[in-house]
């Protein structure tokens, strides 16, 4: 039963991952990506890692996908015309991706399925076990992530408050400036992506 579920989910994940790459409309790509994430999340369930499943759903299928959609719509990228890529680039990309796949497949072929003790495995994804690990062995990384998040947050604020002057200005003027700044950034990004 689990085996069939595994094959079905893997098939679906690979199929939708291919569709992410092949569909011309970025919005479709993102929606297919959601399916991929859901399938991968269900794999966690099969491995009895409920907590990972929940986090995966919330963070990837939820937050990150919304961000993707938001950016695509904000930049008005939902056109079907892609930036033209030269054949030379495509050729190089196909070759290098194919080489990477060969390496990974070769590496996985040689690997033996390790003998896992299933009595411990059933506990491995439980919140309690995970919490114990996080607050004992992995305490430092767990705490240090806060610096990473803080740095990212400072950066986000810094980029967002771009051109606002420190001097007191009437609010409507400030907003006007901010929106002009936003437009500038958007046009800059558009020019870069061209």
């Amino acid at each position: 039963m689990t085996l069939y579920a595994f094959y079905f989910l893997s098939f679906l994940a690979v199929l939708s991952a291919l569709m992410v790459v092949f569909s011309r409309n970025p919005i479709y790509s993102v929606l297919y990506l959601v399916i991929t994430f859901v399938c991968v999340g269900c794999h966690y369930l099969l491995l009895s890692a409920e907590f990972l499943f929940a986090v995966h759903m919330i963070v990837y299928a939820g937050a990150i996908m919304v961000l993707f959609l938001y950016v695509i719509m904000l930049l008005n990228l939902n056109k079907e015309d892609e930036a033209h890529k030269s054949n030379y680039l495509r050729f190089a990309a196909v070759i290098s991706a194919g080489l990477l796949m060969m390496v990974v497949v070769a590496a996985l072929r040689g690997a033996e399925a390790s003998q896992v003790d299933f009595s411990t495995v059933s506990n491995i994804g439980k919140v309690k076990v995970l919490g114990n690990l996080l607050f004992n062995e992995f305490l430092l990384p767990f705490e240090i992530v806060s610096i990473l998040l803080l740095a990212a947050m400072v950066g986000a604020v810094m980029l967002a408050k771009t051109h606002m002057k420190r001097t007191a200005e009437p609010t409507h003027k400030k907003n006007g400036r901010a929106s002009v700044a936003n437009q500038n950034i958007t046009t800059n990004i558009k020019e870069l992506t061209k």
Partner: protein
Amino acid sequence: MNAVYILSGLGIFSLLSEIFNIRKVLFPIVLLGLAAAALLLIMDWNSVQSYYSNMLTFDNYAVAFSAGISIVALLWFMMSKDYFENNTHVTDHFALVLFSLVGAVFMVSYSNLAMLFLGIEILSISLYILAGSKMKDLFSNEAAFKYFLMGSFATGFLLFGIALVYGVTGSFDLNIIAETVAAPSVNFPSLLYAGVLMMMVGLAFKISAVPFHFWAPDVYEGSPTVVTAFMSTIVKIAAFAAFFRLFSTCFAAVSSQWVDVVQVITVLTLVVSNITAVYQNSVKRMLAFSSVAHAGYMLITLVALNEVSDSAILYYVVSYATASIAAFTILHNVAFENENVTAEAFNGLVKRNPFMAFTMTVALLSLAGIPPLAGFFAKYYIFTVAFESGYVGLVLLAILTSLIGIYYYFRIIIAMYLKSSDIITPIETPLLHRVLMVICLLASIILGVAPDLIIRLI
């Protein structure tokens, strides 16, 4: 470990100083804090301590490199003070730099792959933003974007590699991985080697070794000069120290599997970067390629791994960083507002500011590796290490490429002394920059005359 607390505390303090309006005292406090961090680190010399269930290990290698990073950061803050004072977001910039220093310290002292990953990410995320900190400049935006995209891609490789290595060894701990890998007469699945190679790709990107260097010139050119200086000194030191620590301790037992790859990367880095640097008009771009080239010289120590490799690399890194900081300070002063200057901007510098011209000469000669400066002995020790390990061909190639290096460094020196310029107004430098130049000058000369101060340290 205390240094980590101090650096993180400083970062948070500089954020808070915006609220309490004490921006004026921020700069001296940051300098003091960095000095204190370096001192505290040096006091831990010769005592190997590991923290938090062996997440970080401060052995002599880690202490030397983190103290080096703190001191170079101190010099960097002296260099960048005036740039940030003209900028409205001083505190944010300082906070980001300090956080990235925390990441750098993790990268040189990790003994768990989780910490390596976190260190790299903390360093990189701060840098992506710093690279784009000139928000109205399209090149700066491009630099941030390029760095971010390529950086995330490289991190993906690193993570994939870590996952594969974990799959074989069952641990993130460097000691356990090293033990597992060193186990005699075990046939490891090729999963392990694929993992090692992928980690190598991820880290080679961070040190901008040649097949993975395409981001470097654009990012270095687009970023503000002070940020470029930060990237080509502190980031390079941290990334290389992380690379070296991983491969010299963890995967030393399977070196037969990866040493050829590193050798190919080294040769490519040396040849391609030095030859490309000759064709650059922009001084900043030239310095970018020269920093790629220096990564190549550092990689030689990893190819020819023996017991003095780590002290050779420490000496190289210190001499490279002092010379680079000096060169970037002068570039910053000469270029002023104009970010991308050609060698012509240096025309007749000796008449406009003789001290600056002299310092630049010493810095460039040190980078080129001319005796009796520190840069020469740094190269000399690395070549000795390689020679002792029997890599004669590699040494010959490296000597040839450093001859090419002399050509493009001398172009600026010739411009400064022999060419005349229409502009003869003297360039004023802030006192802080003059002090900084004197420090770098002395360091380049003293370390060159007395290399024993560092060379037998680790």
